[in-house]
């Protein structure tokens, strides 16, 4: 049994400690918002936060996560109220949508660290997330929009 903290809930998982966090989330916990794209940390579809830092969950084994706080797309907000989710909806960013959980988690980590990112900051933070549908321009615009919303609300992401 390994203890996990996912989206502020403590859970006990009975799985091979080598199992990548991605498959623990998807198969064991049924949290399928986090996606499998490459399995080799090359596409970003599986991005989650580990103690606030974005990681590719396809290469993080379960035993490396014990005692750390995991945040997934399901935990970004309870009701699509995160500024990024609002901006994503306002700009209709997703096409197929498959990469978008990972995009949002990378963007959320960026905004946490840098609430008013430049184009170059965004490109650098998002370069690890592939979108085969080509939504990159809207993603960039939506991150700027989220930063605006954040400023207007006076809150922190």
């Amino acid at each position, binding site marked *: 049994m390994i203890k996990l903290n996912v989206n502020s809930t403590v859970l006990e998982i009975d*799985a*091979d400690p080598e*199992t*990548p966090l991605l*498959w623990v989330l*998807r*198969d*064991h916990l*049924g*949290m*399928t*918002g*986090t*996606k*499998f*794209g*490459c*399995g*080799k940390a*090359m*596409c970003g*579809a599986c991005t989650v936060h580990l103690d606030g830092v974005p990681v590719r969950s396809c290469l993080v084994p379960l035993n490396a996560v014990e005692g750390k706080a995991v945040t997934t*797309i*399901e935990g*970004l*907000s309870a009701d*699509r109220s995160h500024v*990024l*989710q609002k901006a*994503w*909806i306002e700009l*209709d*960013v*997703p*096409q*197929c*949508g*498959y*990469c*978008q*959980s990972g995009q*949002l988690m990378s963007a959320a980590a960026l905004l946490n660290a840098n609430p008013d990112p430049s184009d170059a900051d*965004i*490109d*650098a933070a*998002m*370069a*690890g*997330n*592939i*979108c*085969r*549908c*080509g*939504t*990159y*321009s*809207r*993603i*960039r615009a939506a991150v700027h929009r989220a930063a605006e919303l954040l400023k207007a609300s006076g809150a922190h992401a």
Partner: protein
Amino acid sequence: MHSPSPAAINRRDFLASVGVGGAGLVLALSLPARGGAAGVRKAAGELNAWLRIGADNSITVLVDRSEMGQGVYTALPMLLAEELEVGIAAIRIISAPVGDAYVNQGNGGQITGTSNSVADAWLKLRTAGAQARLMLTSAAAQVWGIVPDQCHAENGSIQSAHGKSLSYGELAAAAAKLPVPQNVKLKERADFKLIGQSLPRLDTPSKVDGSAEFGIDVKLPGMLHAALAQCATLGGSAQSFDASTAQAMPGVRKVLSCASGIMVIADHYWQAIKARDELKISWDHGANAKLDNAGIRAALHKSLLAGKSLSARKDGDPVQALKGAHKNVSAVYELPMLAHAPMEPMNCTADVRGDRCDLYVGTQAQQLAQSAAAAALGLAPEKVRVFTTLIGGAFGRRLDTDFIPAAALASQAVGRPVKLLWTREDDMMHDFYRPPALIGLSGAFDAQMKLTAWDFHTTSPSITARFDPTSKDPFDSVLEAAANYFYVVPNVAVRYTRQEVGVDFGYLRSVSNAINCFAVECFMDELAAAADVKPYDFRHGLLASKPRHRRVLEEAGRRAGLGEAAPGHFKGLALMEAYGTVLAEVAEISIDAGAVKVHKITCVVDCGQMVNPKIIESQVEGGIVFGLSSTLWGDITISKGQVQQTNFNTYRVLRANEMPIIEVHLLSSDEPPGGIGEPSVALVAPAVCNAICAATGRRLRALPIGTQQLTRT
């Protein structure tokens, strides 16, 4: 030019040839919700094959095209809602089951492809909405004992002239029993309330919180997970295998041999993958054991030189015109194989119980999916139900059904639902790739340097022949776009030589357009150079009788500032007609240390009447990104019969930090709605390569640009 379009002919033929084209499926009007009962002829509130209205006023639209990012789950309901007089925000979407009502008239099958979902639905769904509205109106008139003319529909209810009102939910059950009115009159364009508006996509909210359910996300009670070992050599198969280690690993339930390879079925996917790696398999590498790119290329070259070809189009006397020309120009262009590489790898969940099978799958071809599972299981097709999930990218890959039979067999073998999931490597190495092509072009000028002849000869493996091996159809899917040559030249030949290379190829986004537009539009620039005319003027001069193309060209020239450029920047142009859409792209580039940097792509589009411009814009943009990836790096190579690219490190695609500025201009148009999911892909390569030639004088005649040196000649 050709009517019906070559694409329609081909895909219809292939469906007929595999016996699903006219399958008389009893499910046409039975609309099981997921997990619901099949065979119910008509539920209460079911107005027609696309619409159900609940007593609670809920409106459910069955969408018969697959949502893979292109926006059909929004655009198609908009068409129906326009005539039904309801807003779309509260509409619930269900994917349509297999059924005759859902056949795409443009493709002859229940197929999402050829960029024609809106064109096919344009009259069909508006008519369905209007019929339902009239039935609801009649039902209300009956309740009130007045004639329907004294009632009108408004925002989900029927109002009487005397101020009475009944909601659609109150009327739906009675309305569903009324006869379906024929010859309904549809709204004039000026009266549209929804069509033409950039309404928010209905699928967006579920795609920002992880709740959207793709095929890979399907969860069924008691479901097991399967991983598949396939022979790395294309067309190879397992000769024998030793599963003793794998079998003993934690969670493993069964190891199963099937036509696709050896499958491990386990409690969890990671267990299945780990055990798959422990299988000891001896492979029969089959006929392709020695296949490589050099061999493929040599076969195409030989075939191109042999000159024997099928004629797809002949205007005037091109042979004579070329012979008697004042000046001839010739060139050969070369296109690589490409992978689809959608972000969601191939997967299928099957639930086989007795003589029934339920499939949960992201497919672009519901009837083919049904047939594939039925054939594997030895069942009649109607015993297989298909629940189409959201699709994490398809680009044509999911027109094929190769990943479906194994899932069905796995479920049958263990008596439980099974989800089969391919890894990225499986997906990359076992695609149905875009076929390679060699294209020979010649142009002839008279003494006034007027273009008098155009000869286009392509040699390539056929895609269509895979579905109909006896096909001698010159309008093969690798060729159809070339026959669309729209410049006005008196003598035109478009010819095809089919050359198989032992590999099965598939339809990739923009199909023949992406192959042929590169050659056609680059060669147009070569001809312009030979005539010493600017590329823009050369094209313009051949479009005197083509106002639609001329307008797009002129707008592109103006919007992209063709003819002016910042120091060190160069521009290249391409123009195309495909899927009923006319569009132009201008690429702005610079050359830095022998490599190209693409700064901006401007795209001007006339796609006819638009349903949702915001979605159209995103499709055009996405297509440009897709096209730029393959222009710069797309290259599937084969060695010893094995594809060398395995993941995104070896099959490079564009990333956020490599994005050019993309500017899309949609022209207002009275033409019928054209296709938009695919066309913008095809113009990127010629626009970029024409710009490179303007910058360096070097004419690239092979893709990808990759590491080709781009210094000035």
